[in-house]
């Protein structure tokens, strides 16, 4: 009888150990799955080529006495509140053009698309490493849906500020 009771105690102890190990395993698994994935931005050759192509794109905005403006030049015109010869605002043309360029690329943000978020911004350096938006950024999608982020920056030597950059951020959901 005594021997039987001891065996029962041993079994209870064993079951307890199994339960404790299982609970620990489930907790570790839960933490590793719920931990946000590494969303640290990476660079990409494809995004870099897209970004360069955007900046060189010739828009339909002509500032009097100049040629039709490229996106790079239009950024400066927008900041200086110039007016295109057809009466449109350079900022408006810039926004429409950027949206259309994105729409015709693989970075289009749609319900079924792989790209979940895109942001194009022009930034001026205000202090060491601190940047402010020079013009309102163009945003598509929801940043919260991101699990992998790509980023590209191009220096803009257009006399906007000491250091101004053109930045394209794209993110995907795996």
């Amino acid at each position, binding site marked *: 009888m005594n*021997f039987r009771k001891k*065996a029962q105690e*041993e079994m209870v102890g*064993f079951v307890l*150990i*199994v339960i404790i*190990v299982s609970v620990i*395993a489930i907790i570790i698994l839960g933490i590793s799955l719920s931990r946000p994935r590494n969303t640290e931005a990476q660079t*990409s*050759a*494809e995004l870099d*080529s*897209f970004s*360069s*192509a*955007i*900046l*060189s*794109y*010739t828009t339909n905005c*002509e500032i009097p006495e100049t*040629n*039709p403006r*490229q996106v790079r030049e239009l950024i400066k015109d927008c900041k200086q509140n110039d007016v295109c010869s057809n009466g449109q605002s350079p900022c408006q043309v810039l926004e429409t053009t950027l949206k*259309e*360029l994105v*729409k*015709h*690329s693989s970075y289009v943000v749609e319900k079924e698309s792989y790209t979940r978020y895109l942001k194009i911004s022009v930034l001026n350096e205000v202090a060491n490493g601190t940047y402010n938006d020079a013009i309102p950024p163009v945003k598509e999608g929801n940043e919260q849906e991101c699990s992998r982020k790509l980023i590209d920056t191009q220096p803009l030597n257009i006399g906007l500020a000491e250091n101004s950059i053109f930045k394209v951020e794209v993110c995907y959901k795996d």
Partner: protein
Amino acid sequence: MDKTGQLKIQQMVFMIIAVALFVILAVLFFFSIKTANLYQASIESERDKSIGLVIKLASSPEFSYAGITNGVDSDKLMALKKQPEYRDYWGVNGIVVKKLYPEYPNIECNTGNYPNCTEIILFKKEGDIAQSASSYISLCRKDNTGGRAYDKCELALMIIQTRENEF
């Protein structure tokens, strides 16, 4: 007493096996996740490498447009289209440039419809779509407005069909 000792040893062996199995499963789980990330990284590296090849071709003097980063001269492309002897010069199976924006009629470019067309096919190997790489470019040409010449650049995609084991 001897029997109790044996039972204890059996129990310990069983426990050790269970713990070892658990550790093996955990290690396998960890490595499967690591390997998946490695696979994704290798795909991205391969993609960047193929894009590098397109960029290298786009920046060659036969294609490049002076003064525009990543710019390809569409007039040069149209001139090269008529030169079949250049086909082997590039070391690829095909070079196609497709305009993305602004939109034009979806037709192949020839001397009759250029520049109001979408696709400039320098040359391509029919049916070979397995090995291709593409990259965004600025497709530029000289245009004029009010008697003034200017650089007109559009968004385009340069697609190259690579030869086997090119990457």
